[in-house]
């Protein structure tokens, strides 16, 4: 996908092609068109709030992986507690 991004837009804009003083000037952020020309759509807070990537369908393999790792973490946390208790109260 050819990016239609802010820098390409400025590069292709005849007003900006050789206009170093304009590039050096501070942007007029009071103009919402300037703000929107600098950000990708999903970077605008309002647009991001109104869109979602949506739930993906999890295959059986992925679910097994996630559940397996979750059980692993819980088991390990129990062992951490056991390890710490032994370290603090060593058995004689």
């Amino acid at each position, binding site marked *: 996908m050819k990016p239609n991004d802010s820098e390409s837009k400025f*590069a292709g804009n005849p007003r900006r092609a050789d206009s170093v003083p304009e590039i050096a000037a501070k942007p007029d952020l009071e103009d919402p068109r300037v703000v929107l020309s600098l950000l990708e*759509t999903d970077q605008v807070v309002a647009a991001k709030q109104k869109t979602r990537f949506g739930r993906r369908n999890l295959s059986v393999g992925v679910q097994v992986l996630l559940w397996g*790792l979750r059980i692993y973490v819980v088991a390990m946390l129990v062992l951490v507690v056991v390890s710490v208790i032994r370290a603090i109260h060593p058995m004689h």
Partner: protein
Amino acid sequence: MASVKKDSEASSFGSARPTTEIASASPVARDLVGLLTHEDLDRARDRWRVTRARWKGRGAKRFGGLRVLWLLVGPGVLVFLGENDAPSMLSYSATGARFGIGFFIPFVALTFLMGLVVQEMTVRLGAVTHRGHAELIFDRFGKFWGFFSMGDLVLGNFLTLITEFIGIRAGLGFFGIRPVIAVGIGLLVVVAAMTTGRYWTWERITLGLAIFNGLFIPAAILAHPDWSAVGHAMLTWTPLPTGHASEILLLILADIGATVTPWMIFFQQSAVVDKGMQPRDIRAGRFDTLLGALLATVFAIAALLATVPLFHHGIDASQFEGAQFAEALEPWIGHVGAALFALGIFEAGIVAAIAISTSSAYAFGEVLQTGHSLNRPVRDAWPFYSTLLGSACAAAGLVLIPHAPLEFVVLTVNVIAVLAMPPALAFLILLVNDRDVMGEHVNGFWENAAGIAVTVLLVCVGIGFGLATVFPSLLGR
């Protein structure tokens, strides 16, 4: 390609998709005109600087390139220097004091390479999706798995924050500063950093503090290590550590946990988003991450070398806390060296406290769909800032409770980080391979191979720890 369930909340704006479409050229541009926020303006200002730097650099690529790099460096350096936090630097110090120059020097470098593999993926995720890690997990995997991830993050972050304030207390304690004042100074710095109202300002302040992680370098030089032995160790990974296998395993776990932790994934991705990075900035983001990993590696090895005199003189540092390292080193590296070491521990705690409390705030804001940007003033994003400050205050308060059983936290925080990492890595690798989310920026074969290798290694190390705990005699204890 995973099929997508259409979210019932998708409006006329449609579903999110990977795109570099500029907002002014999008079909919803007219709708967005009246909806811009202060956060959008600040982010646009930051993008303007990058655009101008790239444009000016077209005639003199190196200068333009350097200026662009300067503008885009930040999240990667911060995440790695933030991960060189108080418990991490103390892990490295304990390693140097126990085993001297040898295996652990290249091993520590290897752990940062593992961290680099992981963190590079967060740069791409953030720059392409413009969403934080917690938000993406909730979006793609649902609330059930989202809350599990958040649970790991919240637990790990809170325990780690406690150890940061222990480090702050210990570091300033070397100079005779009372704990309540030391902790208060730490909180003041966190508050000062967060009230800038600008991500750029917050980032530059925190970077300025983070560079003081380099204080361990002069401390290491003053320890007069055998540099030829250091070079030999880097090339040959010898001498190997000797002693109880369980002790060695625990230090291996602690050193890995000092470099690869779940909060780093959440923080860097959110910081990349807050910084306003775009897909064309990914290359600079990789450089930023590499720079952070390199700096952190050097500073970590310096902390290890600084305590080698304790190894040579047979000092048992196994029960040392932060200030005790500095006090024990003073006969060999002098008062200046010891003071630098103590200041380094203080700095490590401060920067990590800022970064980790910010990562918690980002995650809560993303999940609760409230404003979650350092570009927002406090009044506009008070839940975000409340989480940030509240987590720091709670951790600081616990540290001041007399006789609080904090040794449990100190003993386990890095180990817990390692053990909680595999599920976090699984979500990360699944997301970064999701073409609906990443488009053309999905992982390639080698990126997947490296990510899966890191995950498998962490699981194996964790299982080793588990076996050693359940069957201590296995390791000859």
